[in-house]
């Protein structure tokens, strides 16, 4: 009684994409426009005949850009499928060929023809000089190449890939396509720079001498001079990884195992570093512990000790990064500590182990995956951190800032930047794999999904005391630092003039009244609104692509899934500076010309934050019984309908979490952004950096405080929305689902501060 699809006419999905392809080729302007496409100004600028706004078809008909003409032929071919069913062998084959040829030709013409004719000398030799040029691709081109991509995927599905599921194959194709274009292509282009000598030739020798140079690997700090940049970074990252993991564990134990009543408060503290703009903690540390810092002065006044600049370099960096990243370790570990099955610990006790022995031999080993994960996060965060080393580094150079200065400094050496980037990538990916290897051998599953009636035993009393002392001290310290930040924003000039004032807020965020109505006259408004706009646009896109990827990873099986997973998680290990430089290099010239636009900011956010969405999606999707999708499929819904009607509604908490995280991270990112902002699209963080550079700490901190408040409001709203929506499931279960979503989302927090 299920309606059978009758093969009359053209298969509807093919028809759809064919139409899209033709609209791209024959209706919309092929190349990028000067003005906003959606203002429709191009319709009155001589469309469709004027060169600037003409669709490809009209260009071709006027004898221009003839290299676009093959698209017309390719777009005509699918018409041959009229009246053929999906299982006709020609159906799949033809669509695959058309799609593949279309994409191949698209990229060949895109990269082969540049601003000044042929891009490569051999093309000149082969075809003679080309007296025409390419512009950046526009909406027409975008639609057409998308249509080819999906036609290829439909063809692949018709040939039986992934159970013949068009939605799944198309999603895979879409994710691979976008990740390929927006992560792999730019990063590879940038890394290729590592081989380029200052004279512009490619040379392996100069690369090797650079990568093994003293500047990176010197052990000088043991003999009185300085250590290499790479070793500095490695050393710092390991220290930060270990210390944040330990502190995170302390907090997690305090919150869950000691009868501590204010666990919620602790959890609230954990959002602070996520919403704290970069630089701010570093600044606060200077204001407190610098040579003229409040604490330094106080101590030297009381004890008569000569103040020093001890905070600049490793000690200051350690303090700042531990402050910033401990909450992340806490978030990871609290889930793990709660996840250790109490019955295991009870079993241990009935086997005559005392509390210490139980903790040491059972509880702690069972937390190993969490510990490894927390370490990895601390390690990568520290490696990628850009803001703190910039203000606190002193003479302790680290890779992330060196990359930045290799590009922007007077030395201007992209090859050196690429080499440093390779070393940085090597470290982060190495940590990634080391963690997998370490965890690979044992099973740590303690959650069976069945109820566990046990109760966690109390910790040894001595341990409990130590935990309280450490946690209490550190929590106070955190509060102190944040209080300092706030105080810094309301005094005239920190360290010089401590009279209270709201000047900094007024200067940045004043609202005036003119005859035209309200006028946002504060200096910060422009970058503030841009930031909000970009963050609001990129958040849903990030969540969408992240969740689709998570769906593919959790629910589908296909060849090359491991490589697919690696590819989508790669941007997690790539520091922002690297992405920023790579985007500038890759997207400044046709075929993809995006520098100076807001799109490039949105894209960089989407692909840098994508792992957040993926992790959040994976975490909560694993909580949804697979039989739900299967029952939907056997009830006749296709996989898209299943995704939309069953999975998405159940993922609501994860979606919101992903939305908020990507929003917040878009507002606090700096390292990639600093390369990508432009006159029209300046972002808050880069504006704040400018203020810091100018010694205008008051404004920088005031602005940061406003951002923190805005993000707190956003997060609070999310909690309200999530909290009020009860899914009709047993209460406990949905509670668990939420808390676990919260825990797992920031697992990919890293590279954020960077």
């Amino acid at each position, binding site marked *: 009684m299920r309606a059978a699809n009758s093969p009359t006419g053209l298969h509807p*999905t093919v028809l*759809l994409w064919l139409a*899209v392809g033709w609209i791209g080729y024959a209706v919309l302007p092929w190349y*990028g*426009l*000067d*003005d*906003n*496409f*959606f203002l429709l100004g191009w319709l009155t600028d001589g469309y469709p005949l004027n060169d600037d706004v003409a669709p490809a078809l009209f260009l071709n008909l006027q004898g221009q850009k003839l290299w676009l003409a093959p698209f017309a032929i390719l777009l005509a071919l699918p018409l041959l499928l009229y009246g053929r069913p999906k299982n006709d062998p020609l159906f799949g084959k033809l669509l695959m060929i058309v799609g593949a040829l279309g994409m191949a030709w698209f990229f060949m013409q895109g990269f082969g023809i540049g601003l000044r004719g042929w891009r490569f000398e051999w093309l000149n030799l082969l075809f003679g000089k080309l007296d025409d040029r390419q512009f950046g691709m526009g*909406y027409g081109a975008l639609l057409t190449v*998308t249509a080819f991509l999906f036609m290829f995927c439909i063809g692949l599905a018709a040939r039986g890939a992934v159970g013949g599921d068009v*939605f799944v194959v*198309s*999603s895979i194709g*879409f994710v691979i396509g976008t990740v390929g274009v927006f992560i792999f292509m730019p990063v590879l282009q940038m890394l290729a720079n590592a081989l380029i000598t200052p004279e512009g030739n490619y040379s392996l020798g100069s690369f090797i001498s650079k990568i093994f140079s003293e500047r990176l690997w010197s052990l000088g700090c043991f003999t*009185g*001079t300085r250590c290499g940049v790479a070793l500095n970074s490695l050393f710092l990252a390991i220290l930060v990884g270990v210390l944040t993991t330990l502190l995170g564990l302390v907090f997690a134990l305090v919150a869950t195992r000691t009868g501590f009543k204010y666990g919620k408060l602790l959890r609230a503290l954990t959002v602070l570093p996520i919403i704290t703009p970069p630089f701010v903690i570093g600044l606060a540390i*200077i204001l407190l512990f*610098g*040579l*003229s810092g409040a604490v330094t002065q106080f101590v030297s006044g009381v004890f008569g000790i000569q103040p020093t*600049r001890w905070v600049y370099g490793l000690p200051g960096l350690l303090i700042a990064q531990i402050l910033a990243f401990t909450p992340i370790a806490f978030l990871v570990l609290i889930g793990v500590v709660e996840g250790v099955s109490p019955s295991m610990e009870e079993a241990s006790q009935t086997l005559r182990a005392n509390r210490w022995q139980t903790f040491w031999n059972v509880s702690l080993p069972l937390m190993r995956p969490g510990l490894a994960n927390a370490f990895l996060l601390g390690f990568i965060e520290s490696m990628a951190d850009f803001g703190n080393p910039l203000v606190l580094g002193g*003479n302790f150079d680290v890779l992330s*800032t060196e990359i930045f200065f290799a590009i*922007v*400094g*007077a030395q*201007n050496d992209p090859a050196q930047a690429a080499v440093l980037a390779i070393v940085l990538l090597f470290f982060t990916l190495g940590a990634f794999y080391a963690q997998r290897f370490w965890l690979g051998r044992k099973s740590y599953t303690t959650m069976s999904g069945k109820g566990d009636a046990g109760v966690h035993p109390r910790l040894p009393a001595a341990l409990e005391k130590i935990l309280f002392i450490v946690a209490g001290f550190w929590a106070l310290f955190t509060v102190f630092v944040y209080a300092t930040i706030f105080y810094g924003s309301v005094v005239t000039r*920190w*360290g*010089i003039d401590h009279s209270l004032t709201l000047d900094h807020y007024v200067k940045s965020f004043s609202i005036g009244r003119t005859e035209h109505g309200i006028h946002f006259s504060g*200096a910060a408004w422009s970058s503030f609104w841009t930031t909000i706009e970009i963050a609001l*646009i990129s958040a849903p*896109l990030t969540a*969408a692509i992240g969740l*689709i990827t998570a769906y593919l990873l959790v629910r589908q099986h296909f060849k090359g899934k491991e490589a697919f997973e690696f590819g989508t998680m790669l941007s997690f290990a790539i520091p922002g500076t690297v992405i920023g430089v790579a985007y500038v*290099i890759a997207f*400044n*010239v*046709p075929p993809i*010309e995006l*520098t*100076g*636009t*807001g*799109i490039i*900011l*949105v894209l960089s956010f989407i692909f840098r934050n994508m792992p957040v969405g993926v992790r959040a999606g994976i975490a909560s999707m694993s909580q949804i019984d697979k039989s739900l999708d299967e029952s939907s499929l056997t009830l006749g819904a296709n996989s*898209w309908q299943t995704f*939309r009607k069953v999975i998405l509604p159940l993922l609501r908490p994860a979606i919101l979490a992903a939305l908020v995280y990507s929003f917040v991270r878009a507002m606090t990112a700096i390292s990639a952004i600093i390369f990508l*902002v*432009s*006159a029209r*699209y300046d972002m808050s963080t880069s504006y704040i950096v*400018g*203020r810091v*550079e*100018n*010694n205008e700490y008051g404004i920088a901190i005031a602005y940061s405080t406003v951002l923190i408040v805005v993000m707190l409001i956003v997060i609070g709203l999310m909690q309200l929305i999530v909290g009020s929506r009860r899914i009709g499931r047993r209460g406990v279960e949905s509670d668990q689902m939420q808390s676990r979503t919260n825990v797992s989302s920031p697992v990919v927090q890293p590279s954020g501060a960077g």
Partner: protein
Amino acid sequence: MISRKLLLAASVAFGALSTTTIARADSVTLYCSADEAWCQQLARGFEQDTGITVDMTRKSSGETFAQVKAESANPKGDVWWGGTGDPHLQAAAEDLTEVYADSPMRAELYDWAIKQAEASGNRTIGVYSGALGFGYNKDLIAKNNLPEPKCWADLIKPEYKGHIQVANPNSSGTAYTMLATLVQLMGEDKAFDYLKALHKNINQYTKSGSAPIKAAGLGETTIGIVFLHDAVAQTVAGFPIEPIAPCEGTGYEIGSMSLIKGARNPEEAKKFYDWVLQAKVQEKAAEVNSFQIPSNKNAKVSDKVPDISKIKLIDYDFKKYGSSEERKRLLSKWDNDVASLPQ
């Protein structure tokens, strides 16, 4: 089907942002390498006077040079104003900027501004200049019972150990100016002996050129070697900073301006070029705490601007020391002979 939705969402999103910067009517894209407030003042002032919209990006001269170079195949900027002269000269040498020899404002400019233009084949021009020097934090000097430094020679005295900050010449044009100045002042060998001695007193080589005096302002270091106008700005801002022009004489920078080659708005760029060289525009710099010496002879100078007549200036050879080869040679020598020493 999902893809259709995604596409829709994507295109809506992209649409909101897709205002690329290709030749809009009556606008000019300014890359500004000076202080934010100064850049804003110029941009808004030009808009007011001419009605031409200014899209301004503020980045340091090094960053801007990197950007101009990266964008050379498809320039986005029109005019690059400010920042130390070397990157401008470098850009000129690499053919990234446009020749403009017949500006009507040339006649009103000081010789040093014109010389800068000539050194670059008229691809750049001087818009302000500033002498190198240092500044110290009066409070810290008093607190530590240190003598007030007056000369380059004072800075290598052992009592200043750990009290001096200067930028790393690899990343900062200011510090490179110091390097080149000392070489011209003392001769190369002696200059490097001096730098080695100075190295022992340095507490940090910063990345950015003006960071040392800002640190001194906040009391994070006692002495910072910087351009004098940066030191003056700190004093004016209320920090206890005393600017010093070294007694032996010193070098200087010429803040420059270049038109970017292949600009999308060449006409508007030239309009800005001529407008910004006027005396009445240059005079206003002091209003935003920028105390460089204007290049227009008719510009009235604020009393806070260091009196250039009282500073011993060396005859700085911008052509030689701005060239890539000389720069590379000196920097690598500094790296090998100075930076690698223990402190």
